């Protein structure tokens, strides 16, 4: 179960980041600061997953972390640049 959780940790962080941004924007109003903070935290979390997984046998978890990182950065870019 631990292996499975680690494998899915990065996309789950992506999902949490997505839901948080969408939820805050839809129901409370999003500012640039909040977007930067949430994205920073999400990147940190995914980077941690990558760090833990990078030496594990088979590199799927590390690759999935990198892909999730790309997803987080790309989708939040407009929010960080255009917060109003």
């Amino acid at each position, binding site marked *: 179960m631990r292996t499975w959780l680690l494998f899915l940790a990065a996309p789950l962080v992506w999902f949490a980041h997505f839901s948080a941004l*969408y939820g805050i*924007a839809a129901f409370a109003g*999003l500012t640039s600061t909040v977007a930067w903070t949430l994205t920073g935290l999400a990147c940190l979390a995914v980077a941690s997953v990558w760090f833990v997984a990078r030496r594990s046998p*088979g590199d799927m978890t590390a690759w999935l972390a990198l*892909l999730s990182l*790309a*997803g987080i950065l790309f989708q939040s870019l*407009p929010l960080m640049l255009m917060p109003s």
Partner: protein
Amino acid sequence: MTEKRSPLPNRLPRPKGELALLEKAWKVPEGWRLLTAVNNTYIGVFYIGAALLFFILAGVLALVMRLQLAVPGNEIVGQGTYNQLFTMHGTVMMFLFAVPVVEAIGVMLLPQMLGARDLPFPRLSAFAFWAYLVGGLFFFSSLFMGLAPDGGWFMYPPLTSSRYSPGDNSDFWLLGIGFIEISAIAGAIEIIVGIMRTRAPGMTLDKMPIFAWAMLVFAGMIVFAFPAVILATMLLELERSFQWPFFIADKGGDPLLWQHLFWFFGHPEVYIIFLPAAGMVSMIVPTMTGVPLVGYRLIVVALVATGFFSFGLWVHHMFTTGIPGLSLAFFSAASMVVTIPSAMQVFSWIATMASGRLRLTVPSLFVLGFLAVFVIGGLTGVMVAMVPFDWQVHDTYFIVAHLHYVLYGGMVFPLFAALYYWAPAFSKRRLSETLGRWSFALQFIGVNLAYFPMHFAGLAGMPRRVYTYPAGLGWDLPNLLSTVGAFIIALGVLLCLVDLARNFRFSASDAVGDVWKAGTLEWLPNGIYGPRSIPIVEDREPLWYRPTLADEVEEGRYFLPGTKTGGRETLVTTPFDAAPDYVLLVPGPSWRSFWAAIFMAAFFLLLTVKLVVPAMACGVLSLGFVVAWLWQTDPGPGPKLAIGAGIRLPSYRTGSSSHSWWAMIVLVLVAASLFVALAFSYFYIWSVSPQVWPQAASDRLPDLSWAATTAVILVAGSIALLFADWALKRGGTGAGRWALRATLLLAVAALGTACFLEFCAQWQVGLRPADSSYAALVYTFTVVQGQLVAAFILMGLYTIARSMTGKLNAARRVTFDNTKCLGHYAVAQGLVGLFIVHVSPRLAL
């Protein structure tokens, strides 16, 4: 592709009569009792046949539409009929063809591919198939009665509300599709548990065939996506039948809620269809090039990432609905992100082809066609992900062109590739290369001729769903070409059908076999029982890695070469390492699952035409057959069984080791997804129409003591379940057994009372569901909780009945474990629901 030798589990010669016993155990009933068959190969072939039937029927509707649009001002069909045609075409293709055919191929192939004898719940597969077939045929027949839905395949309200669509047409869609989705979820549960628990020993996750990975992601996506549309259909049906105003703006509802819920399902649906097709391509390409797949791990990563990312895109279907600029930018960016994992797969396939030598067989041609057409569809997808462009082409034929390029290219071409590729594994004859090449050529030309001009018609402003158009708008030529193209596609499909009729001779035990020299386990020699013995997997392409494997398996040198109990058995392995865990006694043919499906279909369909009493009778009968079906399961522990190599395994497991527990967990995830969709609806409508929410603590909000009492009763229910567990563990004595039954009954009563109390709390403050969207949503929480509690009550009473008949004890407790799991979840959901309904409005005051 190096050969290595390791000791084999069993020695030769095998005992006399071992094979005959195995064949007897897995024998399929003949004559009309064939309806009771549950073997995965039979259900798979029925399922694929039914899905192809719906593909043809929906295709015929498309041809009629194309004839109508061939020239301007045409009057072959009227506007009303045309509305029904495009609604049924889209609905049948998406719900009755695309998803079921993928599940069908999964049911057919996965056991063989994983080295199992069958999926763990074969009767559930049979149930899903019969429910789908009967429900689907009845749904389609609505077209001949003029009762077919006519609001488009995504059924947007207010067009589909009772005010603007007063007949039964929309109800056919809502109840019919809701029911078929239940069948799809049943199939998904089967697939998830099958993949996680019945892989051959040694087939760790990183040795699993890519198709199995794709099916795992596919089934997981169904679990999280389908409940959203099930909830949406439920809300719209409640609005149509009882005037609960979820989508009526006058009463605080919002039609956009439907779009959110529908597309939260609808966009992942595209990937639900595409990912298994990509999985098929990932199986075909290495075989046809003769080299292992380049970037296996990257493809797995891409599949999983696509599965996740696809849930973040739904709003790109709603760019023109007036949502804020911030959301537009967010979802536009998210829509582009998903192209990364898709492109990773495309590059992997190209790299695999480049690293080997591609044999230009019919499956290869369809794969090449898929690559070309899907990439074009993907590129136009990136175009419509850009908001300004989407604003221009939204609801035009450009979108029709895009979605057909993606769906025909991304799903139908791989499906035909798969038909030609895997047919020899299940047929006495292989399909014709000549007819196949013609079929491919015609379909490839037809697809491009039919759909490419639609881009230009769309850019010239032609809206989708118009039944005719005037001449001179620049739409004439593209439409004529599209019609010619559609008929060329039909000819291509017809050739494939002729090929199937001439050459496909289904046989589960006497098939042509590995004509492509493939490397995966489905190409082992198979009998009606699957592989003669269950192999040990040491590589992703076991047949390439160990060329003698097929002979060794066929000789019975591996695990479970016969039947130990005289019945159907397969090996259950641990979910991650695929180590042998226990021997599963697989249920055989049964009328019960068949009749349960038939009566459940009848229940939904009679309800659609408002025949409530017969519908209820059918519902009760269906439940009766389900109970009778389940009664035969949960056999309890038996003696340990020798599977080979000196390994003796139990034939029964409880708790999280049991395959049944896994199924219950997936079912709970389905329920949780539906509940999350409801919570989203509540907060969404609140953000849109705060004026209908309570403005003060005394404004239609029950006193908090109601919620507190209900919460205490719910928790008491959970505690009663814990006591029941304790009593079961200790309960050898008569007193222990009665304590178990009493505490279970207490839990059942507690959950039922809590549900009733919540209803009373809302009713006594004068809140009525038809008053406003707020009231409707509050009561919907009770309805959703009530459904779960009803299921728990049934399971609780069933468990008590098993205890009273001596079928439940400390060792034989899978039924109880499942009931307990559902009960605890129902309590948790009830508590969260109470918080949302009673506490959250107070926090906002």
